[in-house]
């Protein structure tokens, strides 16, 4: 992954008055500035500015309909295909504004992988599911594909369970396995950022635990942004937390600080309501 290390300087916006500790900014790889998303007239995401430090898990929490999923989707421009949806502000990734018209959309989505709420395996074999990305990317020779598939499945902690049935249909896997297959499929593109949109909300507790454990492992080499309704999950696996309400970031800081003494009473209410 050829990346030009460009450290954007700390960001100060009048509205949120957040002061980030210096070390977070220095190694943040993804940063949004005044990002707003409008569906026709309705403003779903309002002037959100967040930084996502490298090798860390940032959890986006908030009541449903607060725009956290919309915000997540606008990072790798998945909202582009929804008509009457307008995005303003910038998303800086490695110093490049992803919303500028000159950037290659497909390149962005390769480097910023995404996993959805419900597992979405292709109607293909397990091998072909994971190999679909690289093959489309021009990787031709069999051994190289075999290596990528094995490596991705190992990273997604699925290799042991499927290594001898690689050529059966992916639809025969369980819900949790299918979700990990989707993660493996995203990892096969060698992304540097992973966006997870409530990855475990459609899974049973056992699979959810597996996914959470996998995420905390992936933290070592990927920057992860996860949208979740599950407070315990956020507390367990995230390093930073941002609390969204009505499309705006009310509070944003390290997990300990948010969960022990949140600065805004709104955040406190939400967290106590959910955990208390």
């Amino acid at each position: 992954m050829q990346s030009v290390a460009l450290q954007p300087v700390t960001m100060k916006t009048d509205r949120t008055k957040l002061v980030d500790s210096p070390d977070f900014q220095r190694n943040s790889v993804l940063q949004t500035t005044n990002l707003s998303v409008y569906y026709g007239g309705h403003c779903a995401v309002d002037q959100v500015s967040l930084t996502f430090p490298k090798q860390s898990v940032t959890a986006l929490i908030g009541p449903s309909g607060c725009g956290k999923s919309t915000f997540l989707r606008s990072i790798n421009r998945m909202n582009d295909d929804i008509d009457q949806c307008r995005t303003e502000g910038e998303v800086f990734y490695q110093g490049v504004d992803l919303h500028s018209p000159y950037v290659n959309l497909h390149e962005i989505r390769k480097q910023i992988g995404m996993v959805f709420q419900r597992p979405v395996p292709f109607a293909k074999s397990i091998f072909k599911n994971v190999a679909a990305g690289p093959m489309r990317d021009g990787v031709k020779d069999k051994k190289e594909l075999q290596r990528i598939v094995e490596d991705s499945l190992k990273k997604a902690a699925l290799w042991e369970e499927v290594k001898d049935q690689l050529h059966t249909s992916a639809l025969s896997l369980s819900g949790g396995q299918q979700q990990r297959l989707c993660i493996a499929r995203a990892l096969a593109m060698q992304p540097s950022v992973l966006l997870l949109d409530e990855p475990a909300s459609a899974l049973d507790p056992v699979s959810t635990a597996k996914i959470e454990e996998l995420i905390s492992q992936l933290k070592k080499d990927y920057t992860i942004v996860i949208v979740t309704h599950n407070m315990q999950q956020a507390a367990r696996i995230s390093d930073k937390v941002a609390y969204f309400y009505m499309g705006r970031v009310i509070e944003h800081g390290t997990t300990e600080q948010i969960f022990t003494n949140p600065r805004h009473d709104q955040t406190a209410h939400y967290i106590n309501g959910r955990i208390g």
Partner: protein
Amino acid sequence: MKKRNRITVLAFVLLCTWVVAACSSTKANDSDKGEAKQETEQAAEPIMAVGSSALQPLVEAAAQQYTIQNPGAVINIQGGGSGTGLSKISEGAVDIGNSDVFAEEKEGVDASNLVDHKVAVVGMGPVSHPETGVEDVTTEELIGIFTGEIKNWKELGGVDQEIIVINRAKGSGTRATFEAFALQGKEPMDAQEQDSSGTVRKIVGETPGAISYLAFSYFDQTTTALKVNGVTPDRKSVESNDWEIWAYQHMYTNGEAKGLAKELIDYMLSEDVQETLLPEMDYLPVTGMQVERDAQGTVTKK
């Protein structure tokens, strides 16, 4: 996947080359015939004969025999009805236009430069359901039946059974001839119509009290061929013109017949068609006719 994509492109390219080859090969027909010529000397340009479905079996049988004698000759015969045949030949789109009516009788067909070749004669006669109990009708009775004045077979001395009239399709040559010579030009009543002889034969054979008209080649045991004014419908009575309900089968060419078209028409008038093939198929040889008839229907002794 790359491979999948290549397949769709390949299929598309295959389709284009096929169409291009197809179009080019029509242009290459001349060179094509050139080769065909070396292969078989007499083979001429493939010809197309279109028209009357009544004449089609005869021309097909004759063409089949002709190609056995000189292989390589390609004769395509299509049906489509006398109307199509006449209009196509007058436009010069085909080599031979088959028709069972005179070109002059069809409006809209410019018969000026059409050359008529009468190759056979088709006799037609009224046929009825076997159990009507009537064998012979006079012309007036026939007109009465088809115009709807006579409603029941018992009025003709047959069984008490309602008469069911089945006409032929409005534009067909068979209907035009029957109305002209059997009904003396009277308009038949509005009744059930069928255009194909096979269907008419089946309906008349199975519907008690049904009556219609067919060409001699369609007579069989399932229907009774009625005698008119005591004359039995067969080859002798037509040749002597005692049986007036008959029509020439015309093979029109645009201007003088030439090439394979001429050879085919000459073959049609030759012995092995007029004497052997025609009787087998219940058509009547034109050479045997003792009378001549023109488009207006005036008969002259030959």
